[in-house]
């Protein structure tokens, strides 16, 4: 299992990229999986930094690989509940003028990953995503 605790700031993205890089090498994962994990991690982490500014603690990231399945978990401490699995989808039928830019990142994560779970307890948001990998 690979784990990292990082500060709630955009600059921490670099550390996430390094963690994923190490994880991908360790488990001999393909480039496509690496790309999707990086993109999902960026979207999830950026949302936490942008929309939970009141968050009081650092953010934990846990990566694990078991039975051809990658699990990536984010624990965001001291924040209000925001269930991304129930977040409003961007309106793709809207005209360009009305198109909402917000929500694109979450939409992407849901599309790229095979499963997205959300849990909220003790003022901690826990987002877990799963990606099946063919090996």
């Amino acid at each position, binding site marked *: 299992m690979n784990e990292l605790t990082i500060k709630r700031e*955009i*600059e921490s*993205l*670099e550390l996430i*990229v390094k963690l994923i*890089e190490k994880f991908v090498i360790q488990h001999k994962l393909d480039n*496509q999986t690496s*790309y999707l994990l*990086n*993109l999902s991690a*960026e*979207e999830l982490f*950026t949302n936490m930094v942008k929309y939970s500014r009141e968050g009081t603690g650092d953010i934990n990231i846990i990566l694990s690989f078991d039975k051809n399945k990658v699990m990536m978990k984010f624990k965001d401490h001291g924040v209000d509940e925001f269930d991304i699995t129930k977040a409003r989808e961007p309106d*793709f039928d809207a005209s*360009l*003028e009305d*198109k909402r*830019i917000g929500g*694109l*990142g979450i*939409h*992407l994560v849901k*599309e*790229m990953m095979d499963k997205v779970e959300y849990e909220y307890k003790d003022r901690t948001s826990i987002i877990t995503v799963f990606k099946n990998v063919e090996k």
Partner: protein
Amino acid sequence: MDSEIRISLNEKENKDITEIRVDGVIDTVTSSELEQVFNSLMNRQRYKIIVDLSGVDYVSSAGWGIFISKIKEARNSKGDIKLVNLSEDVYEIYELLEFENVLKTFDSLEYARVDFGAGSPNLNGKKKAKNKPR
């Protein structure tokens, strides 16, 4: 994957079209540089913009958000933003975001120039590609 971006401009080829060549990654960290380039072009009333992504293998929602917000501004001033040379990975995300009806992509700079109405003698009678990937 290093979070770096390099941006260069070509305004010589066609007078009213600006071609932006981007290399590196367009993510939360680097996308502000791209936004500044768009802002500065639009401040100079340059609204016909082609973005060459051949050197880009990663665009997160931060980058897509900039394309979408700037395209509104460009079209309001009779311009547009067209993307060319998307890598397979980047094109996959473009499809997931269902941007086909909003943001045009082409598989070469020449096709995008033609779509702006700038004729190119180098096409040798080939039909222009509309919304054609890569």
